């Protein structure tokens, strides 16, 4: 479904990504694990078109998307949930959802505000509340709901557990499992191995902009050496 091959990216002189490859299959949850600054966010931003890679090929459902602008990539059915939430704090919950709304597309679950409020009951109770007056956990749920309004076939989640209370992190994991059941493909970046293990089918480890490991989550869980070397939890 999503294939990244030989990606290189720079910020000014700094070589942020070198030869990054990644694959996400339909209906699967893939996690990109790595430390802060390892290149996780840059990888996701390159996929969605917010960072222009210097080299490499990105295809989504067989179509080249590298070099396209972010809005065109999003319109192909690739949703992006940023790190640090980035909700529109002046807009209400309903208006935030409206910004994300795109026509429904074949082969993807179709979302409406009402359907999203069943997934995130909290949000349904604060439809007209401005985003700025919501708690961090509620804002995180809203960013996901907002992206789902675009009826994507695949979503990219950038560190969804960062900065959340442990009890909210558990809810987040449940939500991701539910999305998978809906038939969505998910690519997420994470530092939190426990969280990743509770949702992901496959894992890729990135360090200093290079891919160090790719395999199933179960294999990674069993491989103490790799975990000790790159993740050290």
């Amino acid at each position, binding site marked *: 479904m999503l294939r990244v091959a030989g990606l290189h990216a720079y910020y000014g002189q700094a070589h942020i990504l070198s030869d990054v490859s990644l694959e996400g299959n339909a209906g699967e949850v893939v996690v990109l694990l790595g430390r802060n600054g390892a290149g996780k966010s840059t990888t996701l931003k390159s996929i969605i*078109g917010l960072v222009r890679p210097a080299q490499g090929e990105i295809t989504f459902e067989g179509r080249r998307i590298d070099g396209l602008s972010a*809005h065109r990539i*999003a319109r192909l059915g690739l949703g992006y949930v940023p790190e640090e939430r980035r909700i*529109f704090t002046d*807009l209400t919950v309903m*208006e935030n959802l409206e*910004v994300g*709304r795109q026509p429904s597309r074949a082969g993807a679950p179709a979302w409406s505000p009402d359907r999203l409020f069943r997934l995130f009951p909290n949000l349904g109770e604060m439809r007209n509340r401005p985003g700025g007056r919501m708690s961090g956990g509620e804002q995180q749920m809203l960013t996901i709901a907002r992206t789902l309004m675009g009826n994507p076939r695949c979503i990219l989640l950038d560190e969804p557990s960062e900065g959340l209370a442990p009890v909210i992190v558990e809810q987040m994991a449940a939500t991701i499992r539910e999305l998978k059941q809906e038939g969505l493909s998910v690519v997420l970046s994470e530092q939190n191995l426990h969280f990743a293990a509770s949702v992901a089918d496959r894992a890729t480890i990135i360090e200093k902009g290079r891919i160090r490991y790719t395999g199933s989550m179960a294999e990674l869980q069993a491989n103490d050496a790799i975990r000790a070397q790159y993740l050290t939890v």
Partner: protein
Amino acid sequence: MSFSAIVIQFLNGLAGTSSLFLVAAGLSLIFGVSRIVNFAHGSFYMVGIYLAYSLIEYFGRGSALGFWGAILLAGLGVGLIGIVVELVLLRRIYQAPELFQLLATFGLVLVIKDVALWIWGAEELFGPRAPGLRGGIEIMGRTLPEYDAILIVIGPVILGLLWLLLTRTRWGTLVRAATQDREMVGALGVNQAWLFTSVFALGAFLAGLGGALQIPREPANLLLDVTVIGDAFVVVVVGGMGSIPGAFLAAFIISQIKAFCIGIGTVEVFGASFAMSKFTLVAEFVVMAIVLVVRPWGLLGRPQAMPRHAGAAEERISLASRPLSMAAFAVLAILIVLPATADTYTLVLLVDIFVFALFAASLHLMMGPGGMVSFGHAAYFGLGAYGAGLLLLKAGLPMELALALSPLVGALGALIFGWFVVRLSGVYLAMLTLAFAQITWASVYQWDEFTGGSNGIVGVWPAEWLTSKTVFYFMTLLLCGASLWLIRRIIHAPFGYTLRAGRDSPLRADSIGIDLRRHQWIAFTIVGAFAGLAGGIFAFSKGSISPEGLAIPRSVDGLVMVLLGGVQTLTGPVVGAAVFTWLQDEVARQTEYWRALLGLTIIGLVLAFPQGIVGFVKARLPARLGGGL
């Protein structure tokens, strides 16, 4: 004033609200989404009024349909111009630093002014009164023109329509979202390019319509662009950046002040008579200053993040590398031996360059290390010039003393204005500096008895021993050179570091015991002194002073020099001043339409060197040569 007079003035003020609101609302919308402070917004207004004039002439003055059709078409025409400007110019520079975008829009001001001059000529053009609305409405024995009554209604109607558009439509929701985080809006599948173009078109349409609606009330003329942008800045800042209701409220307040100042006429206070109508500008800006001190984000606005740096990023400063020091000495040596061979014309031009190098360097100290962008730096230059001139002619001081006191005059003005200015930050700070510059300009322009009003002061000649161009050249070289050296010392001293600390991270500066506001205030005063000195020298080099010396274009000249040169290094403004002064001199000799050429040059330079000339050179020099550049 009788009660009926008060009512009539109030209604006059209401009628004036509409156009001002339309311009300010457009400016605010555009800034919200694109983060561009569109200096050319006043020019859109001006084009609106000219277009309305021509279209009415075309349709015939008598037809009501023609009149209203002309007004609407004028608005739409300006909207179309807005689309072209956005597509051709702005779209290429959205990634450039914000102040460069500002420069580009100022280049546009110059181009539009000359195009208008070319099409419509320099004479004021009086439009017809609206057909069918030539009468008046009797209110308590006085007459309100019918057209004014229509204007009173139009303002609130457009406010209502804009509000509906922004809150009840998908487009409005997207605009409000993009105002907050445009990149995220793009990542959610919204075509930002289209959104930007449509917002710019709407903003330009509103400005054009605002201008067109004024055609029965005021003549179309070429000064409207700068006057209107000044007013619009005041309205947007008083009302709160990004707030449409705020823009309406502020437009209402400002218009009322104007109407009442004019309505009151001349008042007697302690036997002296004051023509209040001359104080409209001052009154307007006093209100702005008060609002900003009490509510720094405007009446209905909210805190706004503003880019604090104009360069690519805060750059390290370092001491001059050996090759650079040697180059500086070489230039100095050439400048010292030059008078032996150069003609008078060259010497005069070089004096101008030295003066503006100092002017630009003082602005650099404020903008670079100080992180405070000034749109009104000419005020301190002008205060120094007028201070020197008046001390010479009115107080009868010797020329040397008058010149020596000119930095003090500049510093005094900066001390007073600075107290207000440092309470703000970012774009509000910049606009307040512009407001103070306008107050200074208006005072000078309107105080005929003391400052010579629009004629300025003549006979400001240097002392006998300085009358030789060569001697004056050396004095200027000495004073400006020493000042530049001093500015460099300050930048490397703890004070300069403290300013940079506050610019890089106000939060951290505060948490290591630095009283940032106090340091900024002192910096503002020091900078005022340097600018004042530049003004003083300038006055004596020309022998006369005119109000243009402290008008908005002079402030923008300073910005152009600093930004073209590169904001984060002292070499930048010096090179920028040299290039700009020379260029202006060259271009002005070639053509009547020098403004347009200058504007196009500025736009071209912004497109070619988004990091400034020095930044451009630096990026291509090995690091060891570029140190301290």
